[in-house]
């Protein structure tokens, strides 16, 4: 205790900081970094999960580089990111913007939009899968058929399948984003709007010049986390396409699903680890980039 008292303020801060971090450091070290490190090591090995591990150098990475499926999956993964993030951002903003201006049964409406976020992905994937079916059981195609429009192959298609699988993922995440957006909207002081009202500017100008700029931190938060989410998309794709994981001709297969299959269907742990390392690097790059933008925003 007296030794502690002799420390300077700064040293005491360091002591407290590491005291607080002691258990978490141990936790992250043991539960996250150690397995992550193992994955990095395994990516240079050949291991079928059951037998011995043998060193193979870079051959897993070479295999990855030469694997057409990997490149297809790589493109898919970015397609999820590039379509999913802006679409969910815009939709959730529009909903939040209008929901924020609504008082009547506000809590009830909000719950309607949040409900999908809470329901089991397995069950919902089945319902969606079923909606997408051709006549006679598919809800969407039944509508089309009764309107005399030719059916659309949603899932059994190399072009439509990815957006069709993405839709439920966006749908399920919408509620969370709406809540975050509404919170952000509430945080904008009313005086800005009053000033704008006195100046007599239109709603569009208010939206683009006041609301959106002031929402920037919220938007950045949502962008960062939905990007990570879409780059790691798995549950919905897997459950939507259980009988042919990854859709027809890998049309919907994302990287995490490829990792899962490589690890637990082909038991090629080394190869799966190499894919994980690649995913790790992509995610780290994207996140650091976004954090960097976020930082530039503050200064």
């Amino acid at each position, binding site marked *: 205790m007296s030794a502690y008292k002799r420390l300077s303020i700064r040293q005491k801060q360091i002591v407290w900081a590491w005291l607080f971090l002691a258990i978490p450091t141990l936790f992250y070290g043991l539960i996250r970094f150690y397995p992550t490190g193992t994955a990095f090591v395994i990516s240079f090995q050949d291991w*079928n*999960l*059951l*037998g011995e591990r043998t060193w193979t150098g870079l051959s897993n990475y070479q295999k990855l580089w030469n694997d057409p499926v990997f490149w297809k999956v790589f493109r898919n993964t970015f397609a999820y990111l590039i379509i999913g993030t802006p679409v969910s951002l815009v939709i959730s903003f529009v909903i939040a913007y209008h929901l924020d201006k609504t008082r009547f049964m506000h809590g009830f409406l909000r719950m309607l939009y949040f409900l999908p976020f809470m329901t089991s992905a397995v069950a919902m994937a089945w319902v969606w*899968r*079923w909606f997408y*079916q*051709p*006549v*006679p*059981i598919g809800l969407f*195609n039944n509508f089309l*058929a009764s309107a*005399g429009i*030719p*059916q659309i*192959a949603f*899932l*059994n*298609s*190399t072009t439509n399948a990815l957006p069709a699988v993405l839709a439920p993922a966006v749908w399920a995440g919408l509620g969370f984003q709406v809540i975050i957006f509404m919170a952000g909207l509430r945080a904008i002081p009313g005086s800005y709007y009053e000033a704008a009202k006195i100046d007599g500017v239109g709603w569009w100008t208010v939206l683009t010049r006041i609301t959106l700029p002031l929402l920037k931190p919220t938007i950045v938060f949502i962008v960062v986390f939905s990007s990570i989410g879409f780059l790691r998309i798995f549950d919905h794709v897997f459950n939507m396409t259980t*009988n*042919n994981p990854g859709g*027809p*001709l890998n049309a919907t297969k994302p990287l995490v699903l490829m990792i899962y*299959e490589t690890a*637990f*269907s*082909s*038991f090629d742990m080394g190869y799966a680890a190499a894919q994980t390392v690649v995913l790790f690097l992509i995610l780290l790059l994207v996140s650091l980039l976004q954090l960097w933008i976020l930082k530039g925003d503050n200064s």
Partner: protein
Amino acid sequence: MSRYMKRMALSGLTALATLFGSSAMAVEIEYWQYFFDARVDAMEQLIEKFEEANPDITVKMTHFPYADYRTKVAAAIPAGEGPDVVQLFYGWLNDYIEAGLIQPLPQDAFDPAVIDAEFFPMVQAMKRDGSYYALPTAVRSLALFYNTRLFDEAGIENPPATLDELVETAKKLAKVDGAGNLTQVGITTGMTAQDHHWWREVLVRQFGGDPYSDDYKTVNYTGDAGLDALNFYVGLEKDHKVTQSGFMDEPQAAFKGGRAGMHIDGSFRIGSLNKVRGLKWGVAELPAGPDGTKSNYSSYWVNGITTKAEGEKYDAAVKFLQYLTSDEAMQLWLDVVGELPAKPSVGLIEENASDPTFGPFIKGLEYANTTKFANESAQRQAMVDMVARIDIEGQDPAESLAAAAAEEQKVLDEYYKK
């Protein structure tokens, strides 16, 4: 309360008894299989009977959801956890042997010569270097399910016996709406279900080919037979318009929903079809090929002894496995689970073979083949993609076939090069 509660209470009591009772001297061995009500029921009955006969041995069964049974086993084994006797799909055998997870069955208790003679021939896929590594209690084969109500409606008397008849029958059964959309299919198709087996082991052979050579290490369906088989298969949808791949999501769903006239599936489907109210169905042997060739595909789950079992546990495991492959166990398995006995001596008794439901499957076993998979899911994927390329991308069947063969050969090479 419910039978599960009872079951749990029972297992709790057993555990207590093991702790405090005289049976503390007993050997306990662990058994793993995947979870399915009927299988668990059947196994519980078997264990009970086995323990009765062998009071010094207790068997603890653990089961996991099917979806991730394999993942679970794969996670447990490297950590040194796991069973003494394990149930595995026959296609995984190579992996398990290679990893040193299971040990050869002792020749004195499981004489290879006797097994060769007594079991259905495809069980020989479980033999390596003269020793058996695992044995099934039951086997499955394919047959043609048909909806008797739809058959009656269409005025069809008998299920098709040949592929040509199959097409004709299907044509009578298919229905379209005003816009030309199929609302009922003559026969279900879907490579993701059982059709890849039907194509590989049945159609290719029936069109005069041999799907693999060199003990399933080389793809051999690239010739005319393969192409003919493929053309026949995709022709059902493209030319004859009697089916639609993925109709109602899954073939069995269409059949269960009463919107499919015919459906090729395994004997394991019987149980779930029995549960569908209002569905009347029959079973027939798979249609014969153009030259009358009959073929079938058989698969099975086997039980093996893991390398973990040593000493008295090993002896107990051997005894348990002997019991699991006994005639008594096979008949019980057939009665409770609906899977076919692995020995003709049990399966082909008059009573079973003439059973209207089990009969066609059991007869099919006589001429069934078993694919030795290197990587079942990857090899299945090659088939799925082959048809998808033709269906969705309009690729020429010959090209697609060649591509599929190359893809599958790659999987095989990768596996066998070691």
